[in-house]
């Protein structure tokens, strides 16, 4: 028996880190996209530079399910270290593609899968004498063979080779030759295509393929960030690296070549956030990009920026914690640490993008929110969004859009006699005016401090002054609710007692799970939360349902805790659905856990009750 499907399967490449497999695998994924077939690639990699196991998975999905599916239909097992485990993970009736040059590593052979042995090493050794060439072209030969086995359009691969080596033309022909070596071998030795195959489609549309970190970096460019201070940390480093790349392209004065930005690789995360706070205090749009350990280190200055009311933008690409945790595995585990960051009573603004397109929009928007609200704003990505290429709608920018610099009193305002009290709520929205340093010779100067202050920024340990300030900060949080991205609600279209709340990278898996659950006879309303503090709609959604599942990727149900805490919801009504092993959450997981619970509650599906 063998699995059969068109444009609907999961292929996984098991490789060794640093062996040059990444670019070949990426070319394979892009060729599928170019055939108009939606696909979702994922990198599973170790915290290592060379030698450890790494996997690249491509989910081919005509239906457009971009979340991880779970399971492997075709395993391309190129790593002897993980061979046995890789073989064991193939779905029954699936396919194992392996290098048949040498005997397979000892292990229990499987009789319930289809074996496709290709003598990759032998083909390479015959063709090439240079060891590095043998290594690199082996990956390309393998892709060539797959193109025949899966009925992939070889011209798409050839075009991609041409694009990839545009500047190194002499590499184009050898790569195309290697593709054809593999393809010819497969055609000569196997019945092509196999049961799982590709067929040209038109389901990709105008979507683009981009990593969330690159999209966030573009968002910072478009959002007007001029100062970036950062410290390298997986999985966030490529945010700053992409920002550097894009600034190099778009942010130099065409006449003088001078830079309209400054990027500092700081000595640590504390200095990074210190620079961001200093720059933002002085009127520049500034951000840092980091991950969980960096968030822990930055705590003191988050509290300072909250209390002294300094705009700042923090992009947190979450990875599995606690401590060093699993640096190359994904989680949504920093919500509480960001929402209540620093000692004392604090609450911070969080943005929760679902994909690269929202990473772009929310990052650009974060600078407006931060300036408007004069407070730190956290953009919470995770490794799944940040470091994987994902199909998403094209990035868009409205050229009539202006940066909202918030309430800044100018020299002209001061000259005209406007009263300036740095922490005075003059408009009733709890947001005071600020001045940039150096604005006016005699007016508008003030002292910024982390010690308690009165409405005119004077040092004060008077209880009444302190309480007034702290209450105003709470009211400012209320103002934020009306400004931030609202939650997105999808109702099932028929009455149900059950709802689901989810956010961030869980979105594609959740949408697919909802379809599976519908097919199982369960009706669910969905709400995707996009920001903290929560909009009133979140409370209404919960009020509309008896029970709400809260699906998230951490052990302690952090979003659920925030909802319970901030909206005073009875915890019994919020059922945690938690996935936190570091792999991407899947529709299979969500639908089985929610489905089993609904079954256990002995819910009679509505259509049965009515029939």
């Amino acid at each position, binding site marked *: 028996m063998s699995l059969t499907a068109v444009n609907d399967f999961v292929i996984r490449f098991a490789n060794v880190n640093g062996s040059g497999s990444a670019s070949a695998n990426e070319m394979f994924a892009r060729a599928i996209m170019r055939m108009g077939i939606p696909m979702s690639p994922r990198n599973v990699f170790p915290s290592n530079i060379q030698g450890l196991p790494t996997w690249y998975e491509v989910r081919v999905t005509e239906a457009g399910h971009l979340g991880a599916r779970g399971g492997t239909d075709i395993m391309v097992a190129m790593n002897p270290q993980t061979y046995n485990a890789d073989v064991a993970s193939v779905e029954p009736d699936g396919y194992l593609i392996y290098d048949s040059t040498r005997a397979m590593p000892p292990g229990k052979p499987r009789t319930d899968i289809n074996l496709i042995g290709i003598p990759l090493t032998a083909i390479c050794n015959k063709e090439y004498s240079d060891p590095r060439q043998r290594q690199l072209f082996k990956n390309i030969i393998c892709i060539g063979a797959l193109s025949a086995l899966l009925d992939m359009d070889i011209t798409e691969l050839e075009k991609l080779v041409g694009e990839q080596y545009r500047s190194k033309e002499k590499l184009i022909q050898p790569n195309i030759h290697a593709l054809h070596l593999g393809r010819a071998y497969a055609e000569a030795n196997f019945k092509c295509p196999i049961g799982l195959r590709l067929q040209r489609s038109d389901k990709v549309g105008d979507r683009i393929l981009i990593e969330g970190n690159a999209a966030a970096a573009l968002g910072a460019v478009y959002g007007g960030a001029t100062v970036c201070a950062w410290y390298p940390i997986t999985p966030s480093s490529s945010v700053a690296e992409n920002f550097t790349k894009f600034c190099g392209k778009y942010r130099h004065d065409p006449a003088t070549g001078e830079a309209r930005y400054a990027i500092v690789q700081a000595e640590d995360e504390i200095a990074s956030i210190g620079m961001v706070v200093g720059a933002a205090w002085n009127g520049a749009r*500034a951000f840092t990009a980091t991950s969980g350990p960096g968030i822990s280190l930055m705590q003191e200055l988050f509290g300072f920026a909250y209390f002294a009311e300094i705009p700042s933008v923090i992009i947190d690409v979450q990875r599995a914690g606690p401590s060093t945790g699993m640096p190359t595995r994904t989680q949504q585990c920093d919500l509480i640490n960001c929402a209540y960051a620093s000692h004392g009573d604090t609450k911070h603004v969080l943005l929760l993008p679902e994909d690269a397109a929202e990473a772009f929009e929310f990052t650009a928007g974060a600078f407006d929110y931060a300036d408007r609200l004069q407070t730190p704003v956290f953009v919470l990505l995770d490794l799944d969004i940040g470091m994987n290429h994902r199909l998403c709608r094209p990035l868009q920018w409205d050229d009539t859009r202006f940066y909202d610099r918030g309430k800044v009193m100018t020299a002209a305002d001061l000259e005209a006699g406007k009263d300036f009290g740095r922490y005075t709520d003059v408009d009733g929205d709890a947001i005071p005016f600020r001045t940039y340093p150096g604005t006016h010779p005699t007016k508008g100067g003030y002292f910024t401090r982390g010690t308690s202050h009165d409405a005119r920024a004077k040092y004060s340990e008077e209880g009444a002054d302190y309480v007034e300030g702290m209450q105003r900060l709470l009211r400012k949080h209320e103002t934020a609710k009306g400004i931030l991205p609202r939650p997105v609600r999808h109702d099932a279209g028929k009455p149900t007692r059950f709802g689901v709340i989810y956010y961030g990278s869980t979105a594609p898996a959740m949408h697919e799970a909802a379809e599976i659950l519908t097919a199982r006879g369960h009706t669910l309303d969905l709400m995707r939360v996009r920001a903290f503090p929560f909009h009133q709609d979140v409370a209404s959604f919960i009020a509309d349902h008896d029970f709400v599942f809260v699906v998230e990727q951490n052990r302690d149900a952090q979003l659920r805790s925030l909802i319970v805490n901030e909206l005073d919801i009875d915890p019994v009504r919020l059922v945690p659905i938690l996935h936190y092993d570091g792999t991407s959450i899947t529709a299979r997981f969500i639908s089985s856990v929610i489905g089993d619970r609904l079954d256990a509650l002995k819910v009679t599906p509505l259509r049965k009750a009515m029939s």
Partner: protein
Amino acid sequence: MTYLTKPKFHHPSLPKNTLGYTRRDYEAATSTLCAGCGHDSISAAIIEASFELAIEPHRVAKISGIGCSSKTPTYFLGASHGFNSVHGRMPSVLTGANLANRELIYLGISGDGDSASIGFGQFAHALRRGVNMTYIVENNGVYGLTKGQFSATADRGSKSKKGAVNTDNAIDLAAMALQLGATFVARSFSGDKTQLVPIIKAAIAHRGAAFIDVISPCIAFNNHPGSTKSLDYVRAHNEAVNALDIMIGRDAITVDYEPGKVVEVTQHDGSVLTLRKLNDDYDPSDRLAAMNFLQQETAKGRIVTGLLYVDGEADDLHGHFNTVAMPLNQLNEPELCPGSKALDKINAGLR
């Protein structure tokens, strides 16, 4: 401390600088430090230097960390924006502020706890980046606000007020600054205004990372026999290598100096530093020699003061980054946002 508030009115005959400001225009709230604190003398020296340089008070950003020293920005340049940050993090906050607006004058005020312990890393990195600033450490060798613990600049063998002997080696911040590539390094003494004021003026005029280690005795916790940061001890062991006169602009030098007794350094802004040699062999343009001299004299128990090193050709972080002349905080959509057409192209390249 004094509870008397300063009167607001000015005597009409108070002297004015070239901008028409009096010294009072550079003052601020009354100090709440202990009476006789060395830090207040440093504040007075900053006021005097700013007055004499005729800088616009509001074009200064004064940034500090936490501690007695870091409180002092409240006590000078009242028209300036001040930033009393968190412990040990003044250098990063100042770096960010400087990147946002290269046109202001940045005055970083710190102490030995703030810079030699919790903030030692940031102290080092701000200097090695060449941030254009005047970084002053008000160095008393002791934690004052928490009542008398040793700081990392306390000399080994020196005694605390309670009689404990310090067994840890001292960090010499001026020596560190030299090693880290600061382009202006000086040490002075809060009790020597004649030496300190011109040094601060020269540091402000310097384009690049200027560091001044000012020994500033703590009257309350570190002014006893056995301390090496007491008024008496510093006076007895002070070894000034030079005396500085600073000329702003390219004015002709009218004072006659004995030949061979003067070193002149012209800085980027045209200011001329004229150093009268007190030690004939000392050359403040030689970083290596300065480092050696400091180590040798420290080993002899002497406190070397004066302008230890200056590089008149120094450049700063903005120079390294080649940033635009217009401050980054004044750039707007037209300069910063590539627009929808560029985005369409980016999208097209991602398909």
